[in-house]
């Protein structure tokens, strides 16, 4: 009994001891949370040791950047916000924004600063930053992501195609894919003309289908800037055509297959000749994984000549949560790291595209072939819609894509079911 009491007492002392906050700092400290690993190229600089040195000296603060596990990041942010122990700066995926806005988790950028930013950056950054009437919810990262068509130039040459001329229309796209597909003696596909993403998180599947969906004239929701309400806009001729394109390539042309579930890896390994996904990722991985690969970058193809090409703009952004303890300092830090000078410095260092118009006129960006190729693609970029039910809509659409391409439902049925689920999600989120 005595021993037990003694043990409990010791535990209690420990508890009290640990609960008392440790030695308080003379300086203020602001924390920044970002995803670890190569999730996004725009987070590479956070690991730098003295990244914030100048800022820290000027304002007498300490900036602590903490890497988080990407997969549990949303959960952690939510719990921390609920417990009011959240970081001062969050580096978040901009597709998380609707969910955060639903819970009123982030602060908007001050109007004056937003106006100044929108005037100084290039058009695609403006598209990404502006959430209607000049409202900004954060600052997008440097080196924004855009989805583009990448193709293997050697494969093109081999198949008798001009390696500098990518397919521009869907019929051309199908033809090229047919020519590029290779088979073994038994007739099994050993190299696909075009690799598709059809497994994994439904949101990712939808992101990689975006170019086809919007290119065919459909959309995820009818009003991309309405936070609440609205309807799904993919159960129509355009939506069906987009799904049918790949279905035809699977069944009729046999130029693609479900057995190559990681298109980027397949492309880098040389078993896929074309794929459409984030360009930044290929740019970052190719030198390490496939140093001999010669590849091209262009806009995704359109249904017919004369149509406007569409691509998805993606990226991460700096945001300040409402429950942050040092909001003013947080905004200052964000503005400092996103100034034109810092933009130039970091983009040059990490081989990424800059955001400010003035920086685009400077070397090395002016002459870099990759950057200039991107510049041609950027105008086609669109941001994801800002609907509170967006996640539900993407779940539904992703499910439809998978069902259709796995031959578990007809295109019409899959889209009809998805439309119902998506509208329900929009309605539920708007409540």
């Amino acid at each position, binding site marked *: 009994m005595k021993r037990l009491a003694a043990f409990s007492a010791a535990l209690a002392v420990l508890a009290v001891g640990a609960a008392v906050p440790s030695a308080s700092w003379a300086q203020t400290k602001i924390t920044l949370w970002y995803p670890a690993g190569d999730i996004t190229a725009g987070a590479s600089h956070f690991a730098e040791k003295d990244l914030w040195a100048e800022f820290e000296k000027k304002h007498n603060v300490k900036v602590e950047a903490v890497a988080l596990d990407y997969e549990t990041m949303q959960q952690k942010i*939510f719990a921390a916000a609920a417990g009011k122990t959240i970081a001062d700066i969050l580096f978040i995926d901009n597709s998380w924004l609707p969910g955060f806005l639903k*819970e*009123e988790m982030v602060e908007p950028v001050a109007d004056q600063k937003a106006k100044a930013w929108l005037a100084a950056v290039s058009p695609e950054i403006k598209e990404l930053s502006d959430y209607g009437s000049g409202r900004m919810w954060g600052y997008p990262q440097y080196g924004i992501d855009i989805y583009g068509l990448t193709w293997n130039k050697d494969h093109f040459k081999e198949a008798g195609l001009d390696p500098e001329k990518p397919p521009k229309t869907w019929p051309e796209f199908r033809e090229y894919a047919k020519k590029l597909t290779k088979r073994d003696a038994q007739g099994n596909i050993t190299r696909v003309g075009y690799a598709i993403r*059809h497994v994994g998180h*439904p949101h990712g599947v939808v992101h990689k289908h975006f170019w086809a969906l919007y290119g065919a004239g459909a959309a995820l929701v009818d009003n991309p800037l309405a936070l609440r309400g609205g309807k799904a806009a993919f159960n129509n001729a355009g939506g069906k055509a987009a799904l049918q394109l790949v279905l035809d390539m699977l069944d009729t042309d046999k130029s693609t297959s479900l057995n190559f*579930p990681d298109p980027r890896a397949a492309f880098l390994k040389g078993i896929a000749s074309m794929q459409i996904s984030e360009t930044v990722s290929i740019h970052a991985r190719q030198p390490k994984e496939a140093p001999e690969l010669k590849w091209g970058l262009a806009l995704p193809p359109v249904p017919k000549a004369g149509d406007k090409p569409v691509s998805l703009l993606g990226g991460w952004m700096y945001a300040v949560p409402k429950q942050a303890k040092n909001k003013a300092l947080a905004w200052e830090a964000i503005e400092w790291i996103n100034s034109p000078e810092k933009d130039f410095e970091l983009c040059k260092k990490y081989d990424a595209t800059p955001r400010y118009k003035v920086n685009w006129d400077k070397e090395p960006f002016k002459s870099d072939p990759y950057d200039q190729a991107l510049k041609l693609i950027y105008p086609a970029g669109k941001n994801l819609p800002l609907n509170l039910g967006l996640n*539900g809509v993407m779940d539904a659409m992703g*499910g439809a894509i998978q069902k259709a391409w796995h031959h*578990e439902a007809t295109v019409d049925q899959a889209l009809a079911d998805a439309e119902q689920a998506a509208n329900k999600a929009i309605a539920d*989120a708007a409540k």
Partner: protein
Amino acid sequence: MADQRDRSRPWPRSSPRPGPRSWRRWWAHLRARHVLHAYLFIAPVLLLFGLFRVVPSVQTLIYSVYRVELLRGRFTFIGLENFRDLLADAAFRTGVVNTLIYVLTIVPVSAAFGLGLAVLFDQRLRFGELLKAVYFAPMVTSTAAAAMVWWWLYNPQFGLFNVLLRLVRVPDQPWLMSSHTALLSIIIFSVWKNLGYNMIIYLAGLQAIPASFHEAATIDGAGPVARFWRITLPLLAPTTTFLLIYNGILAFQVFDQVYVLTGGGPAGATNVVVLDLYRQAFERYRFGYAAAEATVLFVLILGVTVVQHLYSRRFEVAY
């Protein structure tokens, strides 16, 4: 005076009016039954669980009758609306069905394999210790890490499993890519992961059976199979009960491997309840709805556990 060993009766209801005499007797009775000790001994567990597990659980369950906007601090009471929505939600229904299939398959299969291996290793096998360690090894890694490895093993193009199938001229299987085989693939992974755990619990139980029992039966002419059915299995009933109940509780909450291997796909075909509630909570920010799912799951698990507990009493053999 109440018998000190009488465990069936509570404190004596002797005198109608409590006076100093009967208080002392009541106290003596309690002390003899060590009631005070009992409460003191379970106090740490109850207090710690009470504070750090029961309170959060109850709070979460209570959220099911609210529309929860946790960060705004707004809780709107909506009665059973969440539950009505649940019944109409096809994804949730699929989740429940898949979870039930998972539990009903994996719990008995894992136990059966575990028992088989334990019986095997109970005999002296060459390299027994090494083999046992190999069988236990999957338990040592985290489920998520092991699942990542298996994601690649299941790859239809490069993965080892299809490579092996090609060697024996069996056609490639889609494994995780098709809704017909995805759930089965997850189940196979889970059986692999839990085999060692079932095995060592059974091993502990087996070695408690005195050798004299087996000897006596052999002398009476019973073969190994008869010995297994008539002696080993019944005496292992408590172990079996423990495994079925405990593994059942955990299996109902399967999450990690589904999240890593299929993400609930393809097209929601491998959705399970905990994955569904996780996505509702942290991707759709519908915390009240997720809590309702947790409540339904809780009731399901509790029901199954109680039934198992009552049923198992009939099989316990004492000697």
